[in-house]
């Protein structure tokens, strides 16, 4: 800290090289020179740093004097001529005179201390300096920016040259600790572009990231620092200089209270304009650092990489190639804007980056998004939103190519939008994506994960529009939900989520929850338990994404209490739509068409209907064969008439291969005859895809199995909420069959990557629901055993 009330210490015993003033005067002189520079408002950013650096350089030169075998090297921000008014002076005294160096060093350090600088100093031989850099990544980063200031020029040049050589020779070993250091720093300081009070130096996209890029450039021959970054780096530097000036303190976090002063100092119209400029600069720096890492990774892997494996098709037009999601050469980019979503969701799902060429192609060739999304496009979008923590990176990548704003034009209204209050941590767009990321861990607590995720994304969309943000949001969300192809009821639910997104939190903390009037009024507004569940999850996700202060056990308990009381109101009503287990008029006509065929199949691109004699494990064999033929079941309906079973499936081929009805019939006969080992084959295929996933892959929330009894007492209802994978439906229905259960009715919903499957089952023995609690418990355990579990707490954790 700069000491204002500093009294110069008498240093008359120290030698001085300066002809112009006595040793005790030189610190005073440098202080007044520094003060004059700080007081000169025309000196901003780079200009200030250069002038200030030059003044300090010549003073250090005076203090050291002409000398052999010693060199003063500026490192850190001083080294790269980015000194801010309150910066530390970071000086390395490199020498070849071990016995005489102590008094020489004192000659330098004491006046610097006396002048009130915070000094980060070290005294080393060239060899020692290199050894330290080789061991300690922070020292290495300091040396990357090293600059000769005074003393013996040849010695300084030797250190700089040998640092470069060392980086070439041993740099490969520095990469893992460097990566860890950067990751820790980013985790601690957050994103400069999206935090409302960003950390200009340590944050992601901050000034230190530029040093890391230079380090990577020194290490890996294929990394090149972007010269276009000068603009961005000089913006951040100007802001940091101004912040030090305005506060008189060595702080690097741009707090709300200082933003107005810094903005006016730098001539920005207002603080919002300042913060937008900071965010734009930081985004660019962060993006280029990511690029530098990618290049460095390629360089590291190249020597041991085998000849690239053949691309693996993951969806029509999209393939996994060399550890990247890429577009197939024949992908219909110009016809299908939905490829943007496919590429993004697969990148999140497999935890691998999107090839840059693919992003460029999408950005150049993608057509406009239509007025009406297809089911496939909506599913892809929901899958992307459901990727948990990975969704943040995915959105950022898309935004670099302005693809998100193309998919959702309304997104540009909230992009980088500042919200200036002490409650929020993030800009509006990032807050929405963070809310989605947290909602992605709560998908199992609601019966409509797709609505939760879309509602989470849109809940504050109105903040990009004039007027009250909820009122504006209702209109915008309605238009978006309709365009996405949600039916009227679902669109209304999304709109209700936007309308009531603050309801539970505000009622829970400000109203008497024991007052039946409070509870009734919430029940009246929320209308049904499905919306209540959605609002409960949204409230928690929204609060967690807002900031540390917005969610606590205290608030969680109040909200839970409210939800419990409102749920009880709903449970008093029996308005649950009842499922009919019988056939309808269309089915009767279908049965007539089927005649007495052993296995009757009708199929088009999206629907398969099968009529056959009911038999043990029928449903399970049918879904198994569908999966075996590469079809993914998006929805299903099963019902019976006498001894006949009718099953209808909505299917989709992930790789765009339509179902061949004849082949389906043949394979089904083989399955009935026990000639197909479906379980093993599907598990092997699922594993093949699982193996392609990287540690960064989206991790699903833990699966849930819910048991209920049909109100009429005619069946046990088993609901499974889990992440989708190949053969999942076959595995679950096998468990049901093995537990002696007959599926009377099934409702299969695949919502993006989320599965919500409901089975109405009765026991094979007597055709009744299961009464035995032990048997139910065993069934739940057996189902959980075959469901893909989340493998760790890497996602943002829920407090629940």
């Amino acid at each position: 800290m700069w000491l204002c009330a500093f009294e110069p210490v008498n240093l008359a015993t120290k030698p001085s090289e300066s002809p112009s003033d006595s040793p005790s005067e030189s610190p005073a002189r440098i202080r007044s020179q520094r003060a004059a520079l700080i007081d000169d408002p025309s000196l901003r950013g780079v200009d200030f740093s250069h002038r200030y650096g030059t003044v300090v350089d010549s003073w250090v030169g005076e203090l050291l004097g002409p000398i052999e075998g010693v060199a003063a090297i500026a490192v850190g921000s001083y080294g790269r001529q980015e000194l801010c008014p309150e910066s530390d002076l970071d000086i390395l005294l490199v020498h070849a005179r071990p016995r005489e160096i102590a008094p020489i060093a004192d000659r330098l350090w004491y006046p610097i201390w006396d002048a009130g600088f915070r000094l980060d100093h070290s005294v080393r031989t060239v060899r020692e300096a290199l050894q330290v850099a080789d061991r300690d990544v922070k020292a290495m980063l300091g040396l990357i920016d090293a600059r000769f200031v005074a003393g013996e020029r040849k010695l300084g040049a030797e250190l700089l040259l040998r640092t470069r050589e060392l980086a070439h020779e041993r740099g490969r070993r520095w990469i893992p600790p460097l990566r860890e250091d950067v990751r820790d720093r980013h985790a601690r300081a957050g994103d400069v572009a999206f935090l409302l009070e960003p950390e200009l130096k340590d944050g992601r996209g901050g000034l230190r990231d530029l040093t890391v890029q230079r380090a990577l450039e020194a290490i890996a021959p294929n990394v090149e620092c972007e010269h276009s970054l000068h603009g961005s780096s000089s913006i951040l530097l100007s802001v940091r200089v101004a912040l030090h000036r305005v506060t008189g303190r060595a702080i690097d976090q741009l707090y709300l209270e200082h933003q107005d002063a810094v903005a006016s100092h730098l001539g920005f119209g207002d603080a919002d304009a300042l913060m937008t400029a900071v965010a734009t600069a930081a985004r660019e720096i962060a993006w280029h650092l990511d690029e530098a890492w990618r290049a460095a990774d390629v360089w590291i892997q190249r020597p041991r990489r085998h000849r690239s494996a053949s691309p693996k098709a993951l969806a029509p037009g999209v393939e996994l190639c060399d550890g990247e999601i890429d577009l197939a050469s024949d992908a219909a980019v110009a016809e299908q804007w939905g490829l943007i979503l496919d590429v993004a969701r697969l990148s999140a799902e497999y935890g691998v980056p999107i090839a840059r060429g693919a992003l460029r192609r999408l950005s150049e060739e993608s057509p406009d998004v239509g007025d009406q999304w297809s089911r496939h496009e909506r599913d892809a979008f929901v899958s992307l939103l459901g990727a948990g923590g990975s969704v943040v990176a995915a959105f950022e990548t898309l935004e670099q190519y302005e693809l998100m704003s193309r998919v959702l034009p309304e997104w540009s209204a909230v992009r980088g939008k500042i919200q200036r209050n002490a409650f929020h941590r993030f800009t509006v767009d990032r807050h929405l994506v963070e809310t989605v990321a947290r909602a992605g861990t709560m998908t199992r607590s609601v019966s409509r994960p797709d609505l939760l995720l879309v509602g989470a994304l849109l809940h504050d969309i109105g903040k990009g529009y004039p007027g009250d943000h909820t009122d504006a949001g209702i209109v915008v969300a309605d238009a978006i939900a309709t365009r996405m192809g949600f039916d009227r009821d679902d669109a209304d639910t999304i709109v209700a989520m936007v309308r009531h997104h603050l309801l539970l939190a505000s009622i829970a903390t400000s109203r008497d929850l024991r007052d039946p009037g409070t509870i009734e009024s919430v029940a009246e507004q929320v209308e049904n338990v499905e919306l209540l569940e959605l609002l409960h999850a949204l409230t928690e996700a929204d609060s967690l994404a807002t900031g540390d202060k917005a969610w606590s056990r205290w608030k969680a308990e109040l909200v839970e209490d409210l939800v419990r009381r409102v749920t009880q109101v709903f449970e008093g009503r029996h308005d649950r739509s009842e499922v009919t287990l019988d056939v309808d008029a269309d089915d009767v006509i279908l049965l007539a068409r089927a005649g007495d065929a052993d296995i009757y199949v009708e199929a088009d691109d999206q629907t398969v209907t099968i009529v056959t004699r009911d038999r043990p494990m029928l449903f399970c064999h049918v879904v198994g064969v569908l999966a075996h033929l590469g079809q993914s079941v998006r929805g299903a309906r099963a019902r019976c008439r006498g001894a006949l079973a009718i099953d209808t499936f909505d299917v989709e081929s992930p790789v765009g291969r339509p179902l061949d009805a004849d082949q389906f019939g043949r394979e089904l006969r083989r399955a009935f005859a026990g000639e197909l080992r479906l379980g093993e084959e599907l598990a092997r295929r699922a594993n093949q895809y699982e193996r392609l996933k990287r540690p960064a892959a989206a991790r699903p929330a833990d699966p849930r199995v819910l048991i209920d009894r049909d109100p009429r007492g005619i069946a046990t209802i088993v609901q499974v909420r889990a992440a989708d994978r190949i053969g999942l439906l076959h595995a679950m229905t096998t468990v049901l069959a093995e537990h002696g259960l007959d599926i009377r009715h099934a409702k299969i919903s695949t919502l993006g990557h989320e599965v919500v499957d409901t089975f109405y089952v009765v026991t094979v023995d007597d055709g009744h629901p299961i009464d035995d609690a032990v048997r139910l418990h065993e069934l739940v355990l057996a189902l959980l055993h075959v469901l893909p579990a989340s493998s760790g707490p890497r996602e943002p954790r829920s407090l629940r």
Partner: protein
Amino acid sequence: MKLVVAVIKPHQVDAVSNALQDIDIAGITLTEVRGHGRQKGHSEVYRGGEYRVDFIPKVRVEVLASDSTAEKVANTIVDAARTGTIGDGKLWITPVDVAVRIRTGELGDEAL
């Protein structure tokens, strides 16, 4: 100088804060707390459903008052926070040795 501390129901906070403003008390500190008094570990029946409550969310209110106004402050809080049902909370008053307004360095009643 006294410190008046009360633990009250969250939904009574607005009532208490308004009542204090009416008697010209400007400074108030609120903390979200959890705890229980005599209702410890009770089971609550609501619309036929029963559930257990261990710690209940409350708000802790702190007001610094001069010796002469402390009682009035206390009465105001008690009146505003009372609903007459169990769990309305507690209030207590403790002596304060020193109070300083940090900005100016004023001491004692001047600091209020």
